[in-house]
């Protein structure tokens, strides 16, 4: 029984939160990695693009709620997502037209793009603050749990409870659907193939008549969609606070680099790797040790690192990858 309790506790406190957080990171990292693959720079504005997309989605959600429209057990935000994606895509395309295209034509070095993306980040941050303020917003409605602690206990008779929040389930499900659509698009459609060709070898792609501007536009639209979905899921799961989206930039970059920048499969794997390590390392294992080794009374919480240092985990992963395999586990674009 104790072993079962330990398994349930691990599921409840580590596996489920990490899986949903990993899904959110994976979607974020996919956006970063796609932009890197096509436009060849690390987009520092991605976190704030996520925040902006989420802010629009929240505004649309409030609008829908005011009209009395809801999705029953599912969060209304899902219905508002297309609005968020559309507005974000327009804004992102506008920034590309106004900012990045100039440097693309000039063939500027990547670091100039990075710096321009920092300027865009400032702008996005300001717009988000202007739209919705700096306060925390919770906008998840509908059913809170798929499985709640008490039902689980009654059902199984275990001492340990298990909660599976709707937003967690939704994160995982949405990530699966989005990734499936994205890969279908990249592998099966003409435009997707053009994108991959452009990412692999720009000159050859140009020679075979691929329109670079079209590829770039498509990439931005997809990245805006991914950012909005990832941001909304993250906001539904935790709470929406603009500054958190700046901080999530580090785990997202770590995930994209671990997987190999420019490699979509790698970004997904990286997202889950970062999320699982972050949560496993900051989780106090004392309770689980108590179930497994009832005779052992450890002094501390058996927590490898305090939760306030969760960013250090992404950082260490990043450093290890940079030291031993700078192109990432899945061989992304080389140096």
């Amino acid at each position, binding site marked *: 029984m104790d072993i079962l309790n330990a398994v349930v506790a691990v599921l409840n406190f580590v596996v489920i939160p990490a899986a949903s957080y990993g899904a959110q990171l994976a979607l974020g990292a996919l956006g970063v990695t796609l932009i890197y693959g096509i436009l060849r720079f690390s987009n520092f504005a991605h976190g704030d693009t996520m925040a902006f997309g989420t802010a629009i989605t929240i505004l649309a959600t409030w609008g829908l709620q005011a009209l009395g429209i809801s999705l029953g057990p599912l969060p209304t935000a899902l219905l508002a997502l297309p609005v968020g994606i559309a507005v974000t895509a327009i804004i992102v395309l506008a920034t590309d037209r106004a900012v990045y295209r100039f440097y693309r034509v*000039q063939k*500027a*070095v990547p670091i100039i793009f990075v710096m321009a993306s*920092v300027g865009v980040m*400032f702008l996005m941050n300001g717009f988000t603050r*202007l739209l919705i303020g700096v306060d925390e917003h919770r906008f998840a409605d509908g059913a809170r749990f798929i499985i709640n602690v008490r039902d689980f206990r009654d059902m199984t008779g275990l001492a340990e409870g298990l909660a599976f929040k709707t937003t967690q389930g939704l994160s995982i499900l949405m990530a699966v659907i989005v990734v499936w659509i994205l890969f279908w698009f990249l592998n099966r459609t003409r435009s997707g193939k053009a994108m991959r060709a452009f990412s692999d070898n720009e000159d050859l792609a140009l020679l075979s008549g691929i329109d670079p501007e079209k590829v770039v536009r498509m990439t931005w639209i997809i990245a805006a969609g991914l950012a909005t979905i990832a941001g909304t899921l993250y906001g539904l799961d935790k709470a929406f606070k603009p500054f958190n989206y700046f901080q999530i930039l580090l785990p997202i970059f770590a995930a994209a680099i671990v997987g190999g920048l420019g490699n979509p499969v790698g970004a997904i794997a990286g997202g889950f790797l970062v999320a699982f390590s972050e949560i496993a390392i900051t989780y106090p294992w004392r309770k689980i040790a108590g179930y497994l080794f009832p005779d052992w009374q450890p002094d*501390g919480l058996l927590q490898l690192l305090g939760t*306030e240092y969760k*960013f250090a985990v992404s950082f260490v992963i990043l450093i290890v990858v940079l030291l031993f395999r700078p192109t990432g586990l899945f061989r992304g674009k080389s140096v």
Partner: protein
Amino acid sequence: MSTNRQAAAASHWRAPILFAILAVLFILEGTVRNGMFSGSWNTSLAILNMGLISAITALGVNMQWGYAGLFNVGVVGFFALGGLAPVLISTAPVEGAWQAGGPRMLIALATAVGTLALASMLWRHMPRGKLRGLALTALLIAGFVLYRGLFDPAVTAIESNNPARHGNIGGLGLPILLSWLAGGIFAAAAAWAVGKVALGLRSDYLAIATLGIGEIIIAVLKNEDWLARGVKNITAIPRPVPFEIQLQRNPEFMEFANSWGMAASTASGIWVKLCYMLLFLVVLLLLILLAELALKSPWGRMMRAIRDNETAAEAMGKDVTARHLQVFILGSAVIGIAGAMMITLDGLMAPVGYNPLRYTFLIWVMVIVGGSGNNWGAALGGVLIWFLWIKAEVWGPALIAFLTAPLPASSFKSGLLEGAAHMRFIAMGLVLLLVLRFAPRGLVPER
């Protein structure tokens, strides 16, 4: 930067004129009292002092960016780490803290560093293979367990020593000016660690790694109460200049203030700020002098050669990565010095205040606007942008109020007025993008 340069040959008078305009702005702030300026010398000098610190930070960033093209996104971290120095070097020792856990803490930290050093040696000297990986993992795990075994009790011991007032390790009680140097050394050490890993790879990687180290340093300062009391803040950091209250009690100073026809409180405030201003100016000018000398030396020529064409410089036998590491460390040290100076000026260490938007990205705007690659430009950009940033807080809402004056009172209008505070970020982002695109060499271009 090497790409998209403007047409060269800017006038020689450009920099002096811009500095003169800046001086006029501060004089206006000090003397004219209207909707735009406060008319208080205290305010004007307070803005100037913080502007000088920003200028020194911008100087450090300019060394990294302007000399070498290194993009540091963790300025706030190095700045904050420098700010730790006045706390650890110059505050009075805390009674009983050292006895409680000082040596244990030192041993713990030495264990951590030793483990990492051993691991790096082991990695280099053992032959490739599974055994090496296993040995490395075992060493790291053993080192971590040992470190936590030493570290945790030391933290508990130090933090339980008079927790209401102290609970931190305390300082050494050394002169505060010495701590500015120490701040530079702290930041340089962190820069060495980051640069060692992230330099020599793609240029974006340094940016991402510095972003990470910045966040981590702030997290450490917020959460390690034994170090600097975390979010409980450290106050009463010694200052290199007299206190206002001392001046107000000094009959000679009072006479002096009266002869100028000023109230005691105003005069003492101005006097203290002038003292700080002189100190900061000396540091700034000294740093600019050193930087200019370095830039004109063979070393400086080599740095510019590397920046403008890495491949060619490498072909000439220059060790690009090592030079980059060098300049990255130097630049970070300057940022650290500025960080220590700010904590001295504030007399308060409050880690919650370290916001990357303010301490990383605003500094970047200063460097780009001022003129990347030009030390005077960076200094000018630092003071100017800081002045505008502070004044935008007043001018922004005033502008919105003026523009919306004809509109009837409505939620839209009040929303706009509230949002004006956030306009600063949009304005700074716009300034950065516009300068980067239309005047990439900044106000005072590199010669």
